[in-house]
């Protein structure tokens, strides 16, 4: 960024310019003042983002701590998550998040990376140019829409018919829906990483009598590994934070017993928060149920923050290579 000579450096001692000349070079004081004000205003706008981050942490921490102080701690380890009855079993919702996220990644990882390898290594550039935007459209689908789709099609056609589940609401249906939402994200980041691998490496590989499959798997993918890992972590982070698909398709709006059965209804951290907000005794006052909202939010924020920081590391490594 080139610095504009606004005259400040001329005020250093030792400047050997004729006084008249330096005054001319300093310019109009009003103009300089306006510049400084404008710069300050922009700076404030940027600093606002820090304020947001701080506010998130502060508001979450405040209520979460107050929540923990107001409840008997053993209610954090009971048979289930029933906040309105004072049962705040954390492992119920943690496992719920885990199960839904794992199902989502089981779908998104092979589909996303498979599609990415095809687009990067096998597809013609015209094919890639037409298909990539379509894939990105999938990413733009609002999660409520996917939630409705999970409930009305994925659940009856795949979970119940194909997999033999017997509940219309299930974590499996929600997990598959989240997986479909996350797939284009994984595909996009992984494809960018593989596309960035220099052609000279592929030429070296082909020159040594390798076929396309060998080149893709043994040369391109290892070279792009940071980006591929980053894509998976970003996908996982999105899956963990996904709310509406779970809220619609996983059932359990009142509460949930601890369960590890993916074919039954269940509750994730995000779903629990949504359920708390839409119950009949809504978001009022300082009841423990209300404050548990912030407690879960803090957990969620912490998890995704850690995942995002890890993925940043990999993205940086990916950019540094080339």
């Amino acid at each position, binding site marked *: 960024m080139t610095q504009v000579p*606004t005259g400040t450096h001329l005020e250093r001692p030792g400047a050997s310019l004729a006084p008249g000349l330096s005054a001319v070079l300093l310019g109009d004081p009003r103009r300089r003042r306006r510049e400084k004000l404008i710069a300050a205003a922009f700076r404030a706008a940027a600093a606002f983002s820090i304020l947001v981050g701080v506010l998130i942490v502060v508001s979450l921490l405040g209520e979460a701590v107050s929540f923990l102080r107001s409840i008997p701690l053993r209610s954090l380890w009971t048979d289930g998550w029933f906040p309105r009855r004072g049962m705040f079993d954390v492992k119920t919702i943690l496992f719920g998040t885990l199960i839904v996220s794992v199902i989502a990644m089981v779908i998104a990882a092979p*589909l996303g990376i*498979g599609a990415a390898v095809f687009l990067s290594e096998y597809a013609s550039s015209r094919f890639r140019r037409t298909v990539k935007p379509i*894939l990105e459209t999938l990413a733009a689908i*609002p999660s409520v829409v996917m939630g409705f789709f999970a*409930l009305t099609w994925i659940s009856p056609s795949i979970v119940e018919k194909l997999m033999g589940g017997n509940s219309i609401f299930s974590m499996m249906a929600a997990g598959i829906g989240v997986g479909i939402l996350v797939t284009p994200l994984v595909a996009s980041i992984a494809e960018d990483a593989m596309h960035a691998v220099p052609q000279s490496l592929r030429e070296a590989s082909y020159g040594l009598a390798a076929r396309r499959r060998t080149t893709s798997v043994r040369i391109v993918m290892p070279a792009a590994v940071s980006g591929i890992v980053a894509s998976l972590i970003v996908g996982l982070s999105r899956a963990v934070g996904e*709310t509406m698909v779970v809220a619609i398709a996983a059932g359990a709006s009142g509460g949930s017993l601890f369960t590890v059965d993916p074919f039954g209804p269940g509750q994730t951290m995000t779903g629990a928060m949504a359920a708390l907000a839409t119950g009949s005794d*809504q978001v009022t006052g300082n009841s423990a149920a209300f404050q548990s909202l912030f407690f879960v939010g803090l957990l969620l924020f912490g998890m995704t923050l850690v995942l995002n920081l890890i993925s940043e590391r990999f993205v940086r490594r990916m950019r540094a290579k080339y």
Partner: protein
Amino acid sequence: MAVTTTDVVRRNLRRQGTDWGGLLFEGALLFALLVSLGFLIILVGQILVQGLALLAERGTSFLTSQSSSLPGRAGVSQALVGSLMLMLFVVATAFPLGIAAAVYLEEYAADTRFNRFITVNVRNLAGVPSIVYGLLGLAIYVKAMSGFTGGASVISGGLTLAILVLPIVVITASEALRAVPQGIREAGYGVGATKWEVVRSHVLPAAAPGILTGTVLSLARAFGETAPLILVGAVTGVFFTGSGSLVEKFQGAYTSLPTIVYTWSKLPQAEFQKLTAAAIVVLLVMLLTVNGAAIWLRNRYERKW
């Protein structure tokens, strides 16, 4: 060293059978791609089948009726109004703030630790789940600032969405600014312009198409959000919006298009399923329009430069 007579060479160079492994591999990859696209097609197809039938039946009354517990009378008018008002807030607050922050980070900031911290911070905020922004909105706008916002109102909802979208605006605007060639700035400085003058007259106009596209896309993102609105009190039941002063309208109950999709999807009656599908059709059409507008704007303004 290879023994080289023509026949030996010819035999050696011959294809050793078909590469089944390679074909299978390519097939599996293509399958992955097609399955991903296939879900999209099934989703759109399913929704259209159910939704279009209802829209054909109800026509514009679907768009002009308020929500109701009777499926025959329910419509999305409040949802449309609510969504539009929310978008107004996003445009009015997040866009200027976000673009200003991007201008600072790209044009004014020296590469200090503080500024790098801001960039990292913005990127992390972009990755925070949307429902956490709902919590923030709940704590700040609904509770702490309830005098100004009226509690669980459109104002709170709009400001919450604005904060959610802010990091994305900053990131896309930054990218657009970074893409402006340095030569344009240098030309400006070369004729004695100040930094602000260079930015205002040269850099921003050059980056405008990219910034516009990015902001419109983030608007589309905000349009489709539900989780944070639920937390700041968008109504998920039936309510009646009567006449009232403008302030009452802004401080009163509201809903949005995605929220009403959520509400109706939870109702057991079969007719509400069709209503949900119809609402989704309206939602997707509007999103398509907004995304299409972004691309159109980018193409139109790119021609000038």
